[in-house]
């Protein structure tokens, strides 16, 4: 544990002033600091347009919008802001990248397309590639797991033959296990493949550094990749925001898959002259207010003591992991850290989540959008507690106490008590 005080941090988050429920679903969505809310509201209060109009308000909006791109680039230490494309989230980013990469290769006359991904992936980094596999000439190889992480030996074996793309999660949304991206990149390069990383779960907990020439921030991690995606809402930013970073030379070759306003320099009956990246990938009016909120969240994190955040989250996560490991009947499916997935003997995961809800705790339960990994782990579903910088020791101990109560309760009865409180009676 560090001297970091989450209670002081909480003062920046309106959620904690208005809500009493313990928020332990940070892997799905994070609460937002006031600075982010203010930025979104300010943008909405001064609506304008970007990259289009010449009036002063629009010029200012364009500058602010591009400054937001610079902040996001700095957030992941990307070499250039023009390698960052705004999207509506990690899902949107991966779908864009998958379609675009495939079409680019096809137009360049590439025969066949070999993809390697893993059973650990969130559906957003699984389904876009699986859907591509329906196209003629596309082959997909899904490597297995080694305990709670990716089977690196299987990855090496899969990449002993030429490959076009490797798509993996940097941090699992089920087990919390981190990928050794340096090793994955080495294997991908040897196979001639592009390495794409889903960093949705990673950006909350570690400062990502893509540029080897940049000094590694305290608590940060050097990440090797050719492309990477992440979401705003999982790092204290607004919902419906995300970014796709693609290495500059690779980005130049990608073709857009969405077409509309402000993504071409000229168009006539015979030719289309696309804007240079990233604008060619951002057709139509962007969600400016949310994107500015996303950039504000990145700025807020850049200015925060992220090494202290990390130490706090890791310390609490390990403590909670140990507590749950010692709880009779609890089975853990995650590595020690700020994401803990588990089951409790005798309890259906949804019944347990409803029981915990009654106890004032918000936890996700279900397949966690990772059905293949659930099958591989041999469980139908899991309950997941996920921590953030504002999580307190008391939050974690409330969960431990509630689970201890659950052990003593009768599953399927206790969980229904919630309805007694907030539902009507039948007359």
């Amino acid at each position, binding site marked *: 544990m560090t001297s970091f005080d989450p209670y002081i941090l909480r003062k920046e988050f309106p959620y904690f002033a208005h809500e009493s429920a313990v928020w332990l679903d940070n892997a799905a969505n994070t609460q937002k600091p006031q600075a982010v809310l203010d930025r979104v509201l300010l943008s909405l209060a001064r609506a304008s347009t970007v990259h289009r109009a010449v009036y002063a308000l629009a010029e200012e909006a364009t500058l602010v919008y591009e400054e937001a791109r610079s902040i996001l680039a700095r957030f992941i230490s990307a070499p250039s802001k023009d390698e960052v494309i705004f999207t509506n989230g990690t899902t949107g980013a991966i779908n864009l990248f998958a379609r675009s990469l495939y079409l680019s290769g096809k137009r360049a006359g590439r025969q066949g397309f070999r993809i390697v991904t893993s059973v650990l992936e969130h559906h957003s980094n699984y389904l876009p590639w699986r859907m591509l596999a329906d196209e003629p000439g596309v082959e997909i190889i899904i490597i297995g797991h080694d305990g709670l992480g990716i089977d690196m030996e299987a990855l090496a074996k899969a990449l002993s033959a030429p490959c076009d793309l490797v798509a993996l999660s940097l941090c699992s949304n089920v087990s919390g296990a981190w990928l050794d991206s340096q090793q994955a990149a080495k294997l991908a390069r040897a196979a001639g493949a592009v390495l794409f990383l889903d960093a949705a779960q990673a950006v909350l907990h570690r400062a990502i550094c893509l540029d080897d020439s940049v000094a590694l921030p305290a608590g940060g991690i050097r990440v090797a990749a050719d492309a990477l995606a992440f979401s705003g809402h999982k790092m204290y930013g607004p919902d419906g925001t995300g970014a796709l970073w693609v290495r500059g030379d690779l980005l130049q070759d990608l073709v857009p898959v969405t077409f509309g306003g402000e993504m071409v320099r000229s168009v006539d009956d015979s030719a289309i002259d696309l804007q240079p990246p990233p604008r060619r990938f951002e057709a139509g009016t962007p969600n400016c207010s949310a994107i500015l909120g996303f950039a504000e969240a990145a700025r807020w994190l850049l200015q925060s003591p992220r090494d202290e955040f990390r130490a706090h989250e890791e310390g609490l996560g390990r403590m909670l992991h140990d507590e749950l490991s010692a709880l009779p009947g609890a089975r853990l499916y995650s590595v020690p850290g700020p994401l803990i997935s588990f089951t409790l003997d005798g309890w259906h995961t949804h019944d347990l989540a409803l029981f915990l809800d009654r106890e004032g705790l918000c936890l996700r*339960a279900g397949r966690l959008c990772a059905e293949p990994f659930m099958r591989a782990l041999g469980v139908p579903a899991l309950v997941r507690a996920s921590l953030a910088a504002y999580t307190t020791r008391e939050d974690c101990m409330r969960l431990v106490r509630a689970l201890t109560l659950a052990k003593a309760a009768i599953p*399927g009865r206790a969980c229904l*008590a919630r309805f007694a409180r907030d539902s009507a009676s*039948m007359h």
Partner: protein
Amino acid sequence: MRTVEEILKDYARRSSGFDDTILEGRIFHNPNCGDSIRLALADTECGVLLRWNGEGCSLMTAGASLLSLISAGESRDAIKAFASYAIRLASRDAQARIADDAPLPGIRHNAIEAREAVFLFSEFARYPVRRECILLPWNAFIQLLEEM
């Protein structure tokens, strides 16, 4: 007069229609949590007989139990009419509400259980994710009838 909690507890405990000897029949899944239910529908001289088994939470169990009790002795058309109506009630958009003493669509025999289902499903309109749990058997049942 029973509360939602009492109704749910009761039907979940009774697990009416549960039969772990069913090995054949259509299996339906809840994509959110992985729950599954296997339905076996038989026509008897007295009407339909619905049996089920599967892995599910207490809400799914209560929903299946309730469906099994309501459908007992009814015709396929009658229970289909009622199930469609009940499912619509669980939708927040549903405008149609019936008076406490008004006839229930399709139902001839099991009015007490059917009225509890109407009450329960109206309440679940406020829980768009949880309602998928209790509706799993009901949606599966409609799908099964349409496939038969």
